[in-house]
């Protein structure tokens, strides 16, 4: 048993135990802590696997950002009601355990009987060292063969950011319903220098309740369709014929 295997066994055991702790802990904060431990150990295992860049990325992204966010949300959601909702669902627990064991059995069978097909790739440790280390080697692979996926990932991240903004936006259903139900046509909002004429805009006579002054100073005339005002001269338009 080499020292490498010993180190791996220790790290792996801690990672698995911590992972079990994530599932078993009653308090979500403790779960998160256990997950941190698991992630850090997995990152250490990455270093054994000569993936130093990914180890750093793992810590920065997972532990440094995602889990901090999770903790943030845990504390924000309901700090007084954090303990887990226990009890109930005995059937599901049993089913889940059976399924988990079955999958474990299947996967272990696959792992233990596996054979390697195909040739080893070009990035032997010597080749990696020749270009200056794991980071440089990964960069070469990434920016030569995976430029499009990188850009797609960038777009994905942007989309996720926008999605998060939308989700986090406080929604006021009343306003949305109002906008949905009535199209708004602003006839009395001259834009630009037409105001200089000093002529009052010709507004159609309004039924009671049609005029909403909700959107600030600007007068909104609610109309069911543009046809209602088609024959109305627009602001500043010549009256012909």
């Amino acid at each position: 048993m080499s020292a490498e295997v010993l180190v791996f066994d220790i790290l792996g055991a801690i990672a698995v135990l911590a992972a079990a702790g994530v599932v078993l802990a009653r308090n979500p904060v403790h779960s998160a802590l256990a997950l941190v431990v698991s992630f850090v150990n997995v990152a250490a295992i990455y270093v054994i696997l000569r993936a130093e860049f990914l180890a750093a990325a793992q810590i920065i992204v997972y532990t440094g950002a995602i889990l901090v966010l999770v903790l943030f949300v845990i504390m924000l959601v309901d700090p007084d009601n954090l303990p887990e909702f226990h009890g109930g669902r005995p059937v599901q627990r049993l089913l889940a355990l059976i399924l988990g064991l079955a999958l474990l059995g299947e996967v272990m069978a696959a792992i233990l009987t596996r054979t390697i097909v195909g040739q080893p790739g070009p990035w032997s440790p010597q080749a990696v060292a020749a270009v200056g280390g794991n980071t440089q080697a990964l960069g070469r692979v990434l920016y030569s063969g995976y430029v499009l996926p990188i850009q797609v990932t960038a777009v994905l991240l942007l989309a996720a950011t926008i999605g998060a903004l939308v989700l986090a936006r406080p929604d006021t259903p009343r306003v949305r319903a109002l906008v949905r139900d009535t199209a708004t046509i602003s006839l009395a909002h001259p834009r630009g220098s037409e105001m200089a004429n000093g002529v009052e805009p010709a507004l159609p006579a309004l039924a009671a309740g049609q005029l909403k002054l909700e959107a600030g100073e600007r007068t909104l005339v609610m109309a069911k369709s543009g046809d209602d005002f088609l024959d109305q001269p627009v602001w500043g338009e010549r009256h012909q014929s």
Partner: protein
Amino acid sequence: MANWIFLIPLAPLIAAVVNFIFGRWYLRDRAHWLAILGVAISFGVSVAVVAQVARDEVALSQHLYTWIPAGDFQVPVTLTVDQLTAVMLLVVTGVSLLVHIYSVGYMHGDPGFYRFFAYLPLFVFSMLMLVLANNYLLLFVFWEAVGLCSYLLIGFWYRRRSAAQAAKKAFVVNRVGDFGFGLGVMLIFVHLGTLEYTGVFAQVGALPQGTITAIALLLFTGAIGKSAQIPLFVWLPDAMEGPTPVSALIHAATMVTAGIFMVARSWPIFAASPDAMLVVAIIGAATAFVAATIGLTQYDIKKVVAYSTVSQLGYMAFALGSGAWVAAIFHLTTHAFFKALLFLGAGSVIHAMHDEQDMRRMGGLKRHLPLTYWTFLIGSAANAGIFPLAGFWSKDEVIVGAWVGGRPIVAIVGLVAALFTSLYMFRVVFLTFHGPERFDAHTVHPHESPPVMAVPLLILSVGAVFAGFLGVPPERGVFHRFLEPVFSGHGAEVHHVSTATTLTFGLISTAVALAGLGLAYAAYVRGAIKPAVVAARLGPLYQLAYRRWYFDEIYEALIVHPLYRLSVWLWRVVDIGIIDGAVNGVAGLVNFTAQRWRRVQTGLVANYALAIALGTVIIVGVYLIVGSTLFQ
């Protein structure tokens, strides 16, 4: 200069695009600077290019790129300037520039100011590409593009229902003509395998007579629509719903002459088909006559000028039909000056009268609008063909062309129409500017237009006075010598006109014009003839003219109404009954099935997760058994 031709259409295009994108938020009231600059660049380059064409007497061309490279079918975008295009270039860019300047004053304060100055350069771009094209497909594309611009500008005040409908009408009526034009282009391609002018003209003589006639008539169908000939002229008077500068530029000086230009451009095709020529001449003469009669009876100042435009286009058409190509283009050129002048003058009057267009509520404006009066008078006289203004020379030449081209009846109809022309033109002048003030002086205070509107009027009136001298002496003027290379070869017939004939017709048309002037004076200034009495005496004939020969009513009854009924039937039965029924039926079926299946959804995420896990276990298991070597 050939390498700079691309600037001519590009400059207005850039102006249009920039105004479209930035006009609404940034440029707003400054939008006109860019537009005028673009058109001015265009005009300047045109002048330089035309100067070179005139000096070297060869056509210039610049190949930009190949638009459609599909095997044998090549559509190059090549800008070509020969003498005919050169004339059109000067007319289009020159009048456009003046109208742009005029519009600054006319459209001032309109909320759509930037939009106007985006559409207008776009039109100029399309029109220039139309005249610069060297093949029929490009011509056709920009033929449609000018149609689009015309639509946009007629419907410029789109919130007014009448404007929106006039725009629609113009668009639909033009479609009829364009359809024929499109067919003609296809026919050319099918038979000749090319669409480039030079190739087509070189081969057209070899085709059978029937095919040539078919091509020529189909092409002329396009011209009927665009140049407002009978029976498709009904859109042009309605197009006066657009702003007046638009009427001046598009519906008088440039776009409507595209049909004339196209026929002149395709003259070898027409020249090869006497039947087609006859049709062109007849339709032109009929248009000239019918529109002139209608013009006599209208009271809307812009409508009169509009019918006058239709009538003058008729003159050009029958000149074409008589083989007097140069005369047609000459008349086109002079017409551009005086008709733009008339429209802009009418616009000035309307502007001064606070958007009043009915001549019955004008009168006596000479005192208030001296400049407008004099320029409008020059335009009217030019249009009426009073010696020695521009209209006299060109119209006279058109009529002489018809006479010597073997169409004496057409020439006589032209002379009759000339009488009417003179009569209605001076009717407008006298009704508007002379006599008592028939408007309410307390509410309306007529005032002369600002300089930015007056200057184009002055420049155009100079043109209206002197443009005719380009064609002096008749048949051998500068204009003719310049255009001669275009209309030679391809079996062109050259008619030599004796001096006696020229003189005779000059005298006759002068007499006719003066007769019209006299009649108008007698009726509307002296009151010697009572127009109402004459109208009553003529009875049905007057009604016929007043009701515009019932064209609109006939179309309404024969085409629009049946089509409307058919559409309603299609909507009620086919669309709602069959198409919607099928779609809703499918949806209903899905809904019915889904209602049966939805009980499977418990709404509990945990159950879904369990199902996913189960599926994973099963799939991995199946793979292990079937796909791997584990059990084999």
